[in-house]
Structure formats: structure tokens, C-alpha cells
């Protein structure tokens, strides 16, 4: 047996141990939120086969003797569009904080993939409350933070968990870059932060046009060039209205699709966001309303939705206690403050799946997609309800909470 054969056998054994997906099973539910044009299906059945959704509807035939799981409510697995779980650990000590290279304000070449720890306890915490896909970013701190990635919330290695190992370049504006770099080499003003971002993109533009054989290998330029070519998305952290305006200015200058991270005051400039074709990674609804977040509103998601500004939900970045927020509960508060329930579920399922280019695999309950499903007892958003099970690719990976 060659080494290659041994390797294959080992991989097979490993796969069998981890993915004990039963080949075929059925989930029978009172209510299925599909996040498709079918909307909500009452008294429906989902047939799961080989980790994928095979059928969904009210007339799915369940053969006798089949494995049937009965439940109250099902939604697609939730997608958290901005989190640092897996890279900033729960202990919150230097040893487990890997989302921010704090001596470098310009980190385009960094890839969050290389910081990601699949065994970090906060990933399991997110999973328990229904999050099956996470967009993990560098910490919102450096003007150019590095490249994010999108992972499933179960698995043993970053590579096997990644849906996109390079997703978006993260740019950060506002107070945070100033606070972290004031005493280093700057930026210490908003204009310097914008300038650093702008300059790096111009450099990449020039690098892009150089002869491929002659130009110097430059990981940073390479990554930024991918932003310019559209191969990588770009996300820009901005809370205040005028910082959001700066993002739109830069995005227009380089013909980049603006994805605003947080966009705390975005609700004050909905028409502008709409005109700029911007998407907002909405601030966690319960984010602390101080400093540049002082005008945070629990109604922000509702106001964006009413104005037809596309938005997705996120749990965001937390630096102390709690070390992460729970996506489901952030959505819940938005619903309690006027956001339509279906729109809320969409903003944590199909809308982010389309935004991040992973809607062929996840984001809705429809045939052919991964069987990433969340089961609930009672209204999914109510405090006292419970998540009663979470499936990723047909495997029951959490008992909920």
C-alpha cells in the first residue's frame, strides 16, 4: 500500500467518524420558513438525502419505516455576516486574539483563514443558537485589515470548513483606526485613514497594469488588485453618517460595490445608500450605544427595509463581555422593533447567501442545497423559545439551546 493509499484510507475513516449523516431522513414541521418564493410552508416535510435537501413541501411522501424527526418550526441555517468568532477567542488574552495584527495599519496581505481556530468555544456557542455559516473578518481596527473568509460552523480544519477561503477585503474607518494607531505611525485623523485606503488602492491599480513577468511579487498588491477586479468583495466599517459618506466616495472612485459594515447611522441616509447600490451589514441591534455608535437605533433594520436598502444581519465584534453576541437574539430585537419577520429571516439566510456568493449551497430550504437547518420549539425569536436542534449538511451538530 502506498502512502497515498494510506492517506486516502485515513481520510475515509476520518470522514466516516465526523459525518454520520444518515443517508435519508425526513423533518416534519408545523412551520417551515423556506427563504424561497414558496415563503412559509405549513405542515410540511423536508426530505434530506446525503447531506442535501432532496425535497420540501406539503406532499412529500414519507415511506413507512423512514426516519422522521418531528418539530415545531424550521428555518434555514442562519448566516452571520460579520463576526470574529474563531479568530478572537473567548479567553480574550493575547494568546487567543488573532483578528488584528496590531502593529500594522496596512494588512491587505493577511488572510483570516490563517488565524481561524475550528475548536474555539465561541463557534459552538454560535452554532447552538442556529448559526451554520459565519463570515469571519479581521477585527474592525486597521484601515486595511486583511481578507475575510466564510466558514461552516462545524469541522476540524479551516480549509474543510471554508465555503470561501478568501471572501472580502476589510477596510475600517471612523474612530477605531485612530484609537489603535494614534501612538504608532498613524492614522490619527479620519482624513489620514481615508488617504491610506485610497493610496493603497491606487498603488494596486498601478501594480495591476504592470507586466506580470516583470512586476515584483507583492501579496498585498495582489490582494488589493483582486478587490479592483471584483474577485474579492470589499467591506468598509463605518458607523457615523459622514464616515459612511466617505465609504461611498471611495467605492465610487474605484468602482467597488460598497458593503457597509455596521452602518450604525445608515438609517439617516437611506436614499443615499439606495442610490449608491450599497448593502449594509447591519450593526448588532443591541450594540452598545456610545461613542460613534451613540445614535444606534433598534429600528434601523426596519427603516432600511422600508427604504429597500439591502441589509444583512451580523453579531459584530465584541472586545470584552459578552465575547460574542447571538445572531438570533439580535434579529429578534429588530423584529420586536417593527421589522417584518420574513424580511428578518431573509436577512440572515438568502440575502447574505446571495451577497457572499454562496447561494448555490446555502441560504434557503430548497432541493439541491445543503441540509443546513435549525429546529425550534415556539416562535424562533421569543426569549423563552428554544432552538431544539441544528443540522449542517444533514448531520445533527448541536442540540440547540
Amino acid at each position, binding site marked *: 500500500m502506498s502512502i497515498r493509499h494510506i492517506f486516502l484510507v485515513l481520510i475515509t475513516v476520518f470522514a466516516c467518524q465526523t459525518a454520520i449523516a444518515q443517508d435519508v431522513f425526513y423533518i416534519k414541521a408545523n412551520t417551515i420558513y423556506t427563504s424561497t418564493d414558496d415563503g412559509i410552508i405549513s405542515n410540511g416535510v423536508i426530505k434530506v438525502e446525503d447531506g442535501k435537501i432532496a425535497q420540501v413541501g406539503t406532499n412529500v411522501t414519507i415511506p413507512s419505516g423512514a426516519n422522521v424527526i418531528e418539530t415545531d418550526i424550521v428555518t434555514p441555517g442562519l448566516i452571520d455576516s460579520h463576526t470574529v468568532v474563531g479568530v478572537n477567542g473567548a479567553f480574550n488574552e493575547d494568546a487567543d486574539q488573532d483578528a488584528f495584527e496590531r502593529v500594522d495599519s496596512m494588512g491587505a496581505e493577511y488572510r483570516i483563514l490563517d488565524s481561524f481556530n475550528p475548536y474555539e468555544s465561541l463557534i459552538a456557542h454560535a452554532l447552538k443558537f442556529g448559526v451554520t455559516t459565519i463570515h469571519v473578518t479581521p477585527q474592525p481596527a486597521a484601515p486595511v485589515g486583511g481578507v475575510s473568509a466564510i466558514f461552516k460552523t462545524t469541522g476540524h480544519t479551516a480549509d474543510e470548513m471554508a465555503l470561501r477561503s478568501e471572501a472580502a477585503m476589510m477596510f475600517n474607518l471612523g474612530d477605531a483606526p485612530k484609537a489603535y494607531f494614534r501612538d504608532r505611525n498613524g492614522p490619527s485623523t479620519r482624513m489620514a485613514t481615508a488617504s491610506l485606503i485610497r493610496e493603497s488602492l491606487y498603488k494596486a491599480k498601478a501594480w495591476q497594469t504592470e507586466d506580470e513577468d516583470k512586476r515584483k511579487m507583492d501579496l498585498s498588491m495582489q490582494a488589493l488588485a483582486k478587490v479592483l477586479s471584483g474577485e474579492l468583495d470589499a467591506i468598509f466599517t463605518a458607523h457615523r453618517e459622514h464616515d459612511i459618506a466617505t465609504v461611498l466616495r471611495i467605492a465610487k472612485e474605484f468602482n467597488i460595490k460598497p458593503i457597509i459594515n455596521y452602518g450604525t447611522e445608515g438609517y439617516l441616509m437611506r436614499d443615499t445608500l439606495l442610490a449608491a447600490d450599497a448593502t449594509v451589514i447591519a450593526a448588532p441591534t443591541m450594540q452598545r450605544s456610545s461613542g460613534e455608535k451613540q445614535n444606534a437605533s433598534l429600528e434601523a433594520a426596519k427603516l432600511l427595509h422600508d427604504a429597500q436598502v439591502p441589509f444583512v444581519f451580523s453579531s459584530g465584534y465584541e472586545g470584552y463581555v459578552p465575547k460574542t453576541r447571538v445572531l438570533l437574539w439580535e434579529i429578534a430585537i429588530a423584529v420586536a422593533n417593527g421589522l417584518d419577520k420574513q424580511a428578518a429571516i431573509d436577512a440572515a439566510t438568502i440575502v447574505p447567501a446571495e451577497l457572499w456568493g454562496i447561494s448555490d449551497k446555502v441560504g434557503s430550504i430548497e432541493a439541491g442545497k445543503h441540509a443546513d437547518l435549525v429546529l425550534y420549539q415556539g*416562535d424562533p425569536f421569543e426569549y423563552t423559545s428554544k432552538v431544539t436542534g441544528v443540522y449542517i449538511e444533514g448531520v445533527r451538530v448541536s442540540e440547540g439551546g
Partner: protein
Amino acid sequence: MTKHIRILLSALALVSVSGLANANQDEIIAITGARLLPITSEPIDGGTIVLKDGKIHAIGKDINIPSGATVIDATGKVIMPGIVDTHSHVGASGDTNERSKKLNPEMRLLDSFNPADPKIKVALAGGITTANVMPGSGNVVGGQTIYIKMTGDTVDEMIVDGSIGGMKFANGTNPKGDKAPTTRMATASMAREALYEAKAYLEKKQAAAKSRKIDPPEFNLGHEAMAEILEGKRILHFHSHRADDIVTVLRLKKEFGFRLVIQHGTESYKIAKMIAGMDDVYVSHILLDSHGGKHETMELVIDGAAKLEQAGVKLALHSDDGVIDSRFLIRTAGLAMRGGLSRDAALKSLTIYGAEMLDLTDRVGSLEVGKDADLAIFDGDPLSLYSNVLETWIEGEKVYDRSIPKHRLFATGGYLIADRYLALEEDK
């Protein structure tokens, strides 16, 4: 202050008070038709609560409404006592941890408190009417806490009449630093020594009171306050997370016999039986959305409160504002129920148990005749996501009213840009 400015200020104060309050002191108000949650007795559907002189004058199903009373129909609404937050830093943010020394029993949070902090109104929008506002946990002895009502122009008028407040101690991670203490044993030792010194001081004082031959000790402001702990007049609020740290606190309690509220008590569920077995020990618990942020909160669990209840420990839930925004304190009681806490204990954890922890049961924490007319009025079950605080009343006066657009912004956010925010709604 010149006389003119003073008159102007009083006039402004009057305007602002009359803007909020809809009752004068002599007015009798009867709120009818609501579901009343008295907390210390069974809920009353379609009940009436009569308020007079800032107190609850009568409460029940079929009670006579005094003639001349202003009657407010609250059919379909739910009324509970104003929420008691047993651990808050509202109004004192940035002035809670004195860094120059580690033992500060003489310091009073009173002198850090800013009644103009808009977060106080945010707390009102969350139904909170009483709070224990404390120094931070950066010191072994943080200072004297204050028990306040959430309305007033000066801190002095906000203090619950006659209350002296508590004393804040802390152990575990936070008081440790570059200077002593740098270990848990030093933290405990410093706390113990401070208590022994106060004990000696008190004994000298008592001896001097009995005999003219004995000189009283030299006056010491810190010892005076610490002595009140030893006399049982001042409750000790001890910040402590890990089970072993809490056991250290209980050890100190056995040594000195003080009345104790364990603040946070993240791992108190692990030693719930031990806590339940001791007299005068409460847990003022915090339920955060995740574990972590530091070592000692790694084992925070959603069913911790339920385990405390099952062991027979009286617990409150607190905001630690701004760790949890005051508006979301009530939400944590809902989450504790998700973790198995009974509905009864969830409501008590927001009200009467908190009142016990602040020694204020004669004033707040339940809807009972003779207690302060502090109310939180909801449009549904207070423990549901979908319910809102409609009105908050303190001592017979309406101090928050969600139907007033500018008030509602304290619930939703956007109050600092009220005119712009409200214009957004007009756009629609």
C-alpha cells in the same frame, strides 16, 4: 449662583417636571382594568390600583375608587412594580474606578454621579425605577454605593430617602493589577485586613460609648462606613465570578458576619447549595449573551439562574449598565427562563428579591399598599420579546411615556438627534 439664574433654573426645572408628570402631590389616581402583577401575591386580572401621595393607596379587584380620583383606563395592559436593578453604573460611567489606591471605603459614588446622563432616561424606558449604582470592580474596596430612584435633578433628591447605600468589594481578576494586589490571596488579605481594622475601630467606639474612661478612636471616614457593614446597617456588595472566589467571599462572611450580596456570581450555580445554606446571602446575577471575555466568565451558563432557584437561593438579575444596556435587563429574565428559571422567580429577580438585597422592601419591589407607587406598565406580558414598556411611574408620577415621541426615542435610540429622527418618521 446668582439669584436670577437660580430662579431661571427653578422655572426650567418646573417646566421639565410638569412636562413629564401628570400628577401633583394631592391628586389621587386610579388605574383600572389592567392585569396587575403584585409579585408578592397572585396576579389580578382587571384590577385597580389607587395611587395617593406617591404611595400605593389601594390595590385589588373590586375596590372603591375614591371620589375625585383621576381614573386612567389601562384595560389590556399589564402592570408590574418598577424594576429594581441591583447593579448599575448608570450616571457614573468613567468615574467608577479610582486608580490611586485599592481600599476606598470612604469614597462615595454619590460624588461621581451625574443626573443629566441620558442613560438614566434609557433605564426608565426599560421600566427600571430603582437602582444600586456602584463603584467599579477595579479595587478591593471600591467605595460606597447609592440606592437611587431614576428621576430627579440632583443626585441628592434621587437617593431613596433614608437609605445609606451599600459597600462595593471585588475579588478575582479585576482588582488585580500592576500594584498590589497581584494575586487572589493578596486581594483576600487586603479585604480581611480592612475589615479587621474597621472591627477594631468599631469596638473602640463602642467601648468609649460605654465608659468615659476610654477615649474614642481617632475619626476615620473609611472605618465609619466599614463599621456600618459590621453592624449590619450597610450591605456588602461583593463582585465575584469564579466559584473559588465566591467561596473566599463566604469565608470572609463567616469571619465577620456581614450581610452579603454576591454580585455577578457567574459560577455561583456550582456552589448553589453552599450559598443556600447560609443566612443573609443573595446572588445578584448577570446573564450575558455568551461566555468569555475573560477567564473568570468562561463558565457562564444560561441555566445558572435556574440552578440557583432550584437550590433555594434568592437571586436578582442586574444590568451592570453599560455592560448590559438597562433597556435589556428585563430581556435577561426571559433568557433565564429559557434556561429553566421559573416565571415566578424571573419576575421576583427583577423586583422583590432586588428590594431585599438593597434593604428597601418597605419601599419598592412589589405592588402592596403603603409602598412607593413605582410602576412599569406594559402592552403585554413583560417577559415577552414583543412587549413594550408603555409607561414608567415613580412615586405616583409618570416619568416615561412611550406615546410621547421624544420619550420613545429613549427606548429605540436616536434621542440625541431627536428632531432629525422624528423627521424620518414624518417622511413616511
